[in-house]
């Protein structure tokens, strides 16, 4: 190979950004086209440095906008290379048109999305507004709760996304700053083990295969458009989750680290439970353990896979719970929160009598404290005891001013 290998310690102290950059190096990404934006900048900066230092055989393309960054990624993926990039917030918003192009053209691209609030008002800190904005764009979406998972999920994302039965782009989400700039111990893979897991890139219908000319990015009107979209949805609904499960299994065999589409914590006999995303999952797990010591049977569900939505898995996980809180770190701006709606949909035709309430929290990086979560679990227990939701269905956690509650 024409590049140098890097010796890593078994455990390195890395933040989520550096963990993602290292995973991109170890996966030997051929092309990264990027327009850096806080807080995701160090990911593509890291790739560029590894490339300049001779640790990668690839290409870093500097472009004039995020729209151009994803466009160049689409071109490179269509040409037949392993492709990745990173962005956040406004960058993702500008990319959004091309995200639909990438998934519709069935191009495997890995996007590290470092979750950040959307303006206005301008804010660089972590919330899930950007993640939610593009949730129907046809990309597979994984969610990391800490830097170890940002590292691991990159390898998993390449392997799922590039599979010839899948060929759909994948996003690896991590919380801006709370993961991306928080250094923790990350158990590493050797360069050989990591590359061995992801495997050599095998192109399909690549434009640079001149023996087999193909057309990409075509126009279809009412004659074929619906069939293309339906087939893409069909693959997301039927093929992607089994593939993710099998890649999770392969990864567990290699590393001992087990991932599940729905990550359950203390759920076996839980009366009350919180469903959330990102770093909040880990903080909630710690508080759930504390609540057990106080006699409240608390559990936590974290979504590892957001798209395709694990509809049946989440219904199964919640079937014996008495009171559920859906925590959304994004303003729904005139509706119930995304997780509230998805969970309600998953539970509606089941026998469960669980009480579901929604909470909006953490916008623009506002802290979710352990004290908040203690109060939340107590409120859920009160609901379970009363046999009804004792509050409005939608409340806000940690916002100043008069208490806000709706629905």
């Amino acid at each position, binding site marked *: 190979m024409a590049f140098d290998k890097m010796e890593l*310690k078994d*455990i390195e*102290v890395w*933040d989520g950004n550096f963990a993602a950059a290292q995973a991109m190096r170890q996966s030997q990404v051929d092309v990264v086209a990027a327009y850096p934006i*806080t807080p995701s900048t160090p990911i593509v900066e890291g790739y560029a440095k590894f490339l300049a230092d001779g640790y990668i055989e690839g290409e870093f393309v500097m472009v004039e906008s995020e729209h151009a960054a994803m466009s160049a990624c689409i071109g490179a993926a269509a040409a037949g290379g392993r492709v990745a990039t990173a962005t956040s917030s406004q960058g993702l918003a500008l990319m959004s048109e091309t995200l639909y192009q990438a998934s519709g053209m069935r191009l495997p691209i890995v996007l590290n999305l470092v979750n950040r609030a959307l303006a206005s008002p301008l804010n*660089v800190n972590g919330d899930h507004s950007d993640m939610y904005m593009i949730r129907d764009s046809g990309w597979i979406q994984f969610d990391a709760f*800490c830097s170890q998972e940002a590292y691991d999920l990159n390898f998993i994302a390449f392997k799922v996304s590039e599979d010839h039965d899948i060929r759909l782009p994948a996003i690896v989400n991590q*919380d801006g*700053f*709370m993961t991306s*700039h*928080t*250094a*923790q*111990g990350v158990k590493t893979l050797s360069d050989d083990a990591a590359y061995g897991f992801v495997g050599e890139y095998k192109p399909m219908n690549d434009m640079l295969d001149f023996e087999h000319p193909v057309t990409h990015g075509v126009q279809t009107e009412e004659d074929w458009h619906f069939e293309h979209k339906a087939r893409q949805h069909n693959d997301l609904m039927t093929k992607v989750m089994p593939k993710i499960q099998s890649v999770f299994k392969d990864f567990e065999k290699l590393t001992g680290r087990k991932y599940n589409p729905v990550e359950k914590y203390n759920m076996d006999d839980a009366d009350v439970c919180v469903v959330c995303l990102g*770093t*909040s999952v*880990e*903080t909630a*797990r*710690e508080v759930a353990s504390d609540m057990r010591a106080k006699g409240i049977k608390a559990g936590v569900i974290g979504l590892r896979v957001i798209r395709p939505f694990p509809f049946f898995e989440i219904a199964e996980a919640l079937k014996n719970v008495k009171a559920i809180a859906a925590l959304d770190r994004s303003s729904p701006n005139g509706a119930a929160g995304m997780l509230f709606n998805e969970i309600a949909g998953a539970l509606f035709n089941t026998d469960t009598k669980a009480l579901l309430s929604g909470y909006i929290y953490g916008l623009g990086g506002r*802290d*979710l*404290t*352990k*004290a908040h979560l203690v109060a939340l679990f107590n409120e859920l227990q009160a609901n379970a005891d009363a046999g009804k939701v004792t509050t409005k269905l939608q409340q806000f956690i940690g916002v100043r001013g008069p208490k806000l509650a709706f629905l």
Partner: protein
Amino acid sequence: MLEIRWHSRAGQGAVTGAKGLADVISTTGKHVQAFAFYGSAKRGAAMTAYNRVDDKVIMNHEKYMEPDYVLVIDPALVFTSDVTINHKESTRYIITTHMSTDELIKAQPKLAGKKVYTVDCMTIANDTIGRPIPNTPMLGAFMKISGMYEMDFFKESMKRVLGKLPQKIIDANMLAIQRAYDEVK
């Protein structure tokens, strides 16, 4: 769980210091976390950085902290920001200043009755490294007050953390760490 809060100005190396400390501690088998609040991210702006250390995996991602140690690496921050916020009975303060501990407490009465230690990391950094980068000397002072590690082990570990810097700079940092260790009161 051991928790540390750093008060610094952006550019003085609190993040590097917090990450370097986490790196050293991680090699001893403990679990670590290092993060920061960047605020408006302008060089010179007041900012805070944080460490958590525990025997088990650290799952707590809240930003709220009642620190065991407060490390202040810019002398003016004692007066312009509240370094005693979220104080608990056992919190210890290590503060960069040219003043003695008594003079400092007289100048900032909020510190009265608290466990306060002082060291002049600015002068030490200027004398040894030749630049006012007070993060590594603060780590030397922290080793003395916390008794966390033997100096030999800590300095060897820091040599590895600083590995990519020129030898002259590494040597100067070692001098700075030792001087702060010896001089903190």
